[in-house]
């Protein structure tokens, strides 16, 4: 907490609302907290308008606890449920329009490289499956082809949730949803593989039931993106509202899918492997 931008001017310390004092005195800026420390520090994301039991809210809290360098991290989101809590996030973040997040992040990361050549500024894309896998897929893939230095994290709830539960490319085969009245006719996109083939040095499929592993993967993906190139993390985020289950069943849904098709797994390139070994060697 040495940074001036996070220091309240002394004469106004007594009038600042408690949540800002907590953010400064008990937040994770400048500290080495992780997922396992949740509950012991003031989170970046606190109040939010997402539904009870929302998988996105869970994933976002876990991600926010895992940024390696939150005091220099800028998030780029995209329209939809995935972005609804961002105005509440204690980080600079951008919304822009639906699907253009990876293009925005490309320009932003390059700008920050020019302005702060001596400092690492992490840009992280966090968006939903519609924004990343459908409407914005071209811009997502081109950011990978170009080798842009940022991590892309998909919060995959397997539907367009905010617009009322329509089929997305990430919905599973046969699933009946709005705009798929007789069931989805083609399988879920295999984006981790596509990412790997498109230049991502490290891609991972994550089930938040493995919370600690999620933290480690997000950290790795952001650190590697700085030096090696683009990385991709896809996190399963069950949606009780549109998939019609009770909020308290979210964890069960995670565990069910962990047994079948949504196991946590990594696709690690040789240079990513070297990088991870180096990181672990430093510890």
């Amino acid at each position, binding site marked *: 907490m040495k940074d*001036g*931008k*996070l*220091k*309240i*001017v*002394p*004469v*106004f310390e007594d*009038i*600042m*609302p408690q949540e*800002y004092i907590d953010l400064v005195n008990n937040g994770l800026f400048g500290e080495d907290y992780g997922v396992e420390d949740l509950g012991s520090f003031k989170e970046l994301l606190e*109040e939010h308008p997402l539904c009870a039991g929302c998988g996105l809210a869970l994933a976002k809290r876990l991600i926010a606890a895992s940024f390696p360098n939150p005091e220099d991290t800028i998030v780029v989101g995209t329209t939809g449920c995935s972005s609804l809590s961002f*105005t*509440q996030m204690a980080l600079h973040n951008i919304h822009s329009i639906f699907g253009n997040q990876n293009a925005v992040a490309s320009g932003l990361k390059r700008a920050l490289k020019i302005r702060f050549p001596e400092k690492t500024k992490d840009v992280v894309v966090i968006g939903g499956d519609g924004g990343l896998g459908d409407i914005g897929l071209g811009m997502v893939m081109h950011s990978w082809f170009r080798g842009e230095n940022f991590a892309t994290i998909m919060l995959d709830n397997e539907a367009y949730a905010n617009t009322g539960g329509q089929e997305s490319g990430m919905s599973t085969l046969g699933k009946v949803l709005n705009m798929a009245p007789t069931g989805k006719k083609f399988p879920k996109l295999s984006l981790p593989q596509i990412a790997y083939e498109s230049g991502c040095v490290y891609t991972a499929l994550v089930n938040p039931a493995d919370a600690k592993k999620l933290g480690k993967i997000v950290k790795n993906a952001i650190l590697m993106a700085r030096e090696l190139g683009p990385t991709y993390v896809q996190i399963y985020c069950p949606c009780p509202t549109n998939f019609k289950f009770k909020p308290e069943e979210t964890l069960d849904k995670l565990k069910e899918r962990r047994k079948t098709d949504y196991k946590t797994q990594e696709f690690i390139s040789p240079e990513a492997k070297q990088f991870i070994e180096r990181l672990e060697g430093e510890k």
Partner: protein
Amino acid sequence: MKQKNYQVLPGPESYLPPAAASQGIVLPEKGEGLIEGRIYGEEETMVAIAKKLLNAKNPTFFPGPLVLWAWRDGVIEKAELLKELADIVGAKIIPMPDYRPKYPKINPEEEINPNHPNLTIWHNKIDACIFIGVHCHYANMGLKLIRGGTNCYTIALCGEYGHEDANITLRDVNLDTMRKLIKVTKEEKKKIGLKEGGNANG
């Protein structure tokens, strides 16, 4: 839809008051200020600010992020001068720590927000206020909403070019300007004090 001789007066003006700039109000040049949409010299503008603050029942300062967070040199000093001015006129200080909409969860007693500033003004019955350290876009947005729904007299101390949407504005406000404004305010306070037999406490 331009009105003739539009003046930037305290509200409540309408459900959606026009931006003063779209009514032909032009920002002041260096060394000038704006009082209710008309150009005056900096000194005269300062006197008007001092009088408004000293005569208000419940003057309140709204420091924004640029003066609440010690992000660059000079901010701590500017905050101290603002506090000094508040003490002279007996003003309360309610911060605007950031710009995210907080409706309806805002606690109007302890903070103000540019997206719904009226909640704080109504709740605390504020009749004169100062905006300072607020990014210009958010300041204008909030000032317009205040003119729309309240009768609060707004004063904007701007580090850049000033704000037509405030009832009074000063531009290029730096540490020297703050010191000068404090001096002018002390003098005005003295004058009022003499008139009222030395009992003025702002």
